[in-house]
């Protein structure tokens, strides 16, 4: 099954177009970053070769890449689900924060529970926290048509400050000087797949959710309705779909998955909640969803790509003097180029606007 079904028709030409739409932004971003590296006195070919080796060169490095991709698969999926319903949710970052704190709280509080229950409860807490975080913007968008871009963007900053307050005060680990909760119980940690790598059960959960997303999108009525609502909400309404209710549901689902990303990051990787918990996983998730064109396979590959960049960027900084910031530069430019349409250069046609 190809992932270009969003484009009508299935001819070779369409496939080709779908492929270039994904590769072009990446190639452009790499090209611009190469110019920067040259200006800074680095050999871009050498840097890119190092990045490839450091992210995929050995089993250990692949495990590190997959571990880094885990939260990005989930934030990319969370973003894609909301986008699909036509809700422009840029608030997944906030969900990662509240979800991470909720899971960590359960993980260091109910330490008497058996491991399976404790992990389930902590994960559930992160899912609920994330979903609730998106309740207000979802309802406001669906019922009052309040711009969800603004409300979700603003809620990110609220989530970051609110969790920072909680880990600085009420939830601060006793005797700790830095803003962090106590470590979660060992029984609350997600099992590791390839120790000593931090790759853990969370990766499996993320991939399973991607498969579910693919089935949901292609095989279920709700998935079809969501797609219709996102493409043309007027048509959806006249076909008898309750679009406002659908938007609320999808915003809650988006928040739940965003919260799960935080919960898995807390239980699987960090082991607690610290202030500055997420280095922008929610925002990278937007890039992942866009570059992956909202398809399950696309999201997976894009998350691996950004995971590889993050993990290899951190290690090449140790071996060479290439600043790790090249990764942020690439990421930001991929976002920009992924939404730009270069078709006009060839067709010389003016857009409707």
């Amino acid at each position, binding site marked *: 099954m190809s992932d270009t079904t969003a484009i009508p028709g299935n001819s070779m030409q369409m496939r080709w177009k779908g492929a270039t739409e994904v590769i072009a932004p990446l190639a452009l971003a790499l090209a611009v970053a190469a110019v920067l590296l040259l200006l800074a006195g680095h050999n871009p070919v050498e840097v890119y070769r190092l990045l490839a080796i450091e992210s995929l060169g050995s089993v250990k490095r692949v495990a590190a890449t997959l571990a880094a991709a885990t939260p990005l698969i989930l934030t990319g999926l969370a973003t894609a689900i909301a986008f699909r319903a036509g809700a422009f949710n840029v608030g997944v970052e906030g969900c990662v924060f509240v979800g991470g704190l909720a899971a960590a709280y359960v993980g260091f509080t109910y330490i008497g529970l058996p491991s399976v229950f404790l992990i389930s409860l902590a994960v559930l807490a992160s899912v609920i926290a994330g979903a609730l975080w998106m309740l207000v913007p979802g309802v406001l968008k669906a019922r*009052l048509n309040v711009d969800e871009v603004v409300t979700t963007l603003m809620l990110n900053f*609220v989530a970051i400050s609110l969790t920072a307050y909680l880990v600085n005060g009420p939830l601060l680990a006793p005797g700790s000087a830095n803003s962090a909760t106590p470590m979660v119980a060992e029984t609350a940690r997600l099992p590791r797949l390839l120790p000593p790598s931090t790759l853990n059960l969370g990766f499996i959960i993320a991939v399973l959710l991607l498969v579910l997303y693919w089935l949901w999108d292609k095989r279920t009525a709700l998935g079809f309705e969501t797609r219709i609502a996102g493409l043309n909400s007027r048509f959806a309404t006249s076909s008898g779909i309750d679009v406002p209710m659908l938007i609320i549901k999808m915003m809650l689902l988006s928040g739940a998955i965003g919260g799960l990303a935080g919960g898995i990051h807390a239980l699987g990787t960090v082991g607690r909640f610290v202030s500055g918990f997420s280095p922008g996983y929610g*925002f990278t998730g937007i890039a992942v969803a866009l570059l992956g064109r909202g398809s399950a396979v696309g999201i997976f590959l894009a998350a691996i790509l950004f995971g590889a960049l993050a993990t290899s960027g951190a290690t090449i900084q140790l071996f060479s003097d290439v600043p790790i910031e090249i990764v*942020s530069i690439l990421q930001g430019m991929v976002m*920009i180029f992924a939404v730009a349409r270069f078709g006009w250069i060839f067709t010389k046609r003016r857009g409707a606007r």
Partner: protein
Amino acid sequence: MIDNVIHAALVMTTPVLLAALGGLINRVGGLVNIGLDSMMLAGALIGLMLASITGSWAGALLGAAMIGAVLGLLMSLAVTRLQANEIIVGLGFNIAVAGLVRFFIKTVYESSGTLALPDVARLPRIDIPYVADIPLLGAILSGHDPLTWAAWLMVPVTAWFLSSTRAGLRLRATGAAPQAARALGLNPLTIRDASTVFAGLMAGLAGAYLSIGVVGIFNEGITAGRGFIALAAFYFGRNRPWLTALGALIFGFFDAFQIRLQGRGIPAELVQTLPYLMVIVVLTLMALAVRSARSKGA
């Protein structure tokens, strides 16, 4: 004590006000500028560098305005000519420019995050004789720099520009009805580009205010999300210059207060959430007002 708070609040208002007025013009022209923070950051860096190299604060402001304007132009072209989504492009600019700035500091100055340069020309303070000694009024009017005065002067100028000038009318037409504007022989894309260049220019000045006006050094976190507070301010002000200025002033007071509230039982982090929550409340109230007006009309 109260004089100090007023003075600090006005200092904190200036960068938000500058960027918010730019963002307001941009939004009236039909583009919501999420990238203001990136233009602020670039302005702060270039402002500090030029203030050190040229020794002139005016030159520094000019350079900061220029870099902001260039970034604004690039962002606008991506949106208007390549039909890219403005929200995504704005977020992309924030990520890419933040990376670029850190990359630049590391490469050129071999410093990570913070940059202190010698002989930085700071913004001068204008002390008004006699007025400076009057309680309250002295703190409000005296001891401020030229950029603060310029920012507040821009409030009535923006209001007048939008309501009473031909260019302002064209800008509003571009934002409200691009097709109609095109039918009148205007080029909505070019007008929108101009409004984004202006927003970048103002955000660049706001950044320079932070680096050479407030602290005298550059830090990668110097904007502290003030580009987003500016966004909050013009959403709060619903595109009206005076209301937007009021929003910026309220947020400036929060900013000044949170520093003073530390250690007094009121956590600074909770105060920091207020601007963002206020915007959500204002948008909700507006939507409720629209709905009740509609149901009454029906």
